[in-house]
């Protein structure tokens, strides 16, 4: 069955308040689960405070050529939200003021933003890592997007892309029919120009997330499997595999509710709570900017519309690093997704 966005279906779960209600109180089991802030308290981490602003993450908008079943952004072709030039200028000012080491561009499909090239040209410089979170398929759609790998190479952009599995069945089930073949075509193209190849300095990382209601396995073991299989089947090389736990929000939450897996999944996340992973959560060194300029502790809080605590610096036009460094990070039950097992972040495990 074709997947469409919750927004286009006017589904109740498109409302972040409803998502929070569901993960907190949808069933007796969920009501009795420990609260995330209690667990932090027990780990001596409450209130959760930042350690820095090392990663400046910009969500350029929710438009995407794909509509994956598990998307936490509820992205899709019908989503029109995109960052204005004015907010992009504010972002650039903030990046320069911080002299940010890492700028992480995400979406939707960030490449679909009309100012994407302009932005990358403005922010890329030696010593700074600019990451694009690519869904891969966009890179083989039409000539305009097919030119992107060369553009990435020219600016030394690090490409981090989604590939849930090294086979067609699992990949297409999660991301739509034809995704696997197009992803492989895009990976070939990236390899051809040096991405993922030793000695080129062109970094190609893959993101694995489970295609179902289970947790990711050991990152290094999965990386070895992916490397062996992608090389054996397609001659494809890449640098690192990041395993990411699916957070119980948006379309993945819809899947959990519909499939009757929500209680078990939340229990699983809580059982797997790891204080060491909690200590390394990405919100402690990241700021996430949404398309409309609002500042968040992470991309997940962005989707749940839980902005940063600092009222005086809650919009990119009021970006105040000092105030943000003193903020209290806002948590809720979805945060258990980042602290399960070896931990989970946009860069994979955190322990």
């Amino acid at each position, binding site marked *: 069955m074709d997947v469409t966005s919750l927004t286009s279906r006017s589904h109740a779960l498109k409302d972040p308040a409803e998502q929070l209600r569901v993960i907190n109180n949808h069933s007796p089991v969920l009501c009795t689960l420990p609260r995330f802030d209690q667990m932090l308290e027990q780990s001596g981490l409450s209130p959760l405070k930042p350690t820095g602003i090392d990663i400046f993450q910009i969500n350029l908008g929710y438009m995407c050529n794909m509509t994956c079943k598990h998307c936490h952004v509820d992205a899709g072709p019908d989503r029109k939200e995109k960052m204005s030039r004015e907010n992009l200028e504010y972002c650039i000012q903030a990046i320069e003021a911080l002299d940010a080491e890492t700028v992480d561009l995400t979406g939707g499909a960030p490449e679909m933003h009309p100012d994407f090239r302009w932005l990358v040209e403005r922010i890329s410089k030696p010593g700074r890592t600019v990451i694009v979170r690519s869904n891969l398929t966009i890179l083989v759609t039409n000539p305009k997007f097919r030119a992107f790998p060369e553009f990435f190479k020219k600016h030394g952009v690090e490409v981090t892309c989604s590939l849930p599995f090294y086979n067609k*069945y699992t990949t297409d089930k999660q991301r739509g029919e034809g995704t696997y073949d197009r992803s492989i075509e895009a990976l070939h193209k990236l390899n051809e120009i040096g991405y993922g190849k030793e000695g080129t300095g062109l970094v190609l990382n893959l993101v694995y997330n*489970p295609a*179902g209601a289970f947790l990711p*396995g050991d990152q290094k*073991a999965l990386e070895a*499997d992916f490397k062996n299989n992608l090389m054996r089947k397609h001659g494809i090389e890449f640098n690192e595999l990041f395993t990411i736990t699916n957070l119980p929000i948006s379309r993945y939450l819809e899947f959990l509710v519909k499939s009757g897996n929500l209680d078990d999944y939340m229990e699983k996340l809580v059982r797997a709570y790891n204080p060491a992973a909690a200590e390394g959560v990405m919100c402690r060194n990241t700021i996430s900017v949404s398309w409309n300029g609002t500042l968040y502790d992470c991309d997940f809080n962005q989707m749940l519309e839980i902005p940063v605590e600092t009222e005086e610096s809650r919009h990119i036009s009021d970006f105040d690093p000092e105030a943000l460094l003193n903020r209290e990070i806002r948590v809720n039950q979805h945060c258990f997704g980042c602290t399960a097992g070896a931990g989970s972040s946009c860069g994979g495990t955190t322990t």
Partner: protein
Amino acid sequence: MQNSYYDSKDLAKFGDIGDFEPVLGEKFFDYYNQVFEEGELTAREKALIALAVAHTVQCPYCIDAYTEASLEKGANETQMMEAVHVACAIRGGATLVHGVQMMNKTKRLGM
């Protein structure tokens, strides 16, 4: 006693076995955990072997646990079904190969 001998929630209580006999329980779980550590066989290979054996011993707890463990370790649906077929082939084969005994006996008794 409950109406059913099996309750999926009991799987999570496996560790409580030690409550009635801690020493042996601890020895067992130490051994068990070490068995599943990465060795010459990968953790995924071990999960798939466990999945196949789980079907042979027809233990619903084990099938539950090692279906999920296999997925977590990065096994796919085809690999998992192939593992079940291995169990099935050995189980079926074990029955069938005893047919040789039947044949031996028949031949000995026959004229």
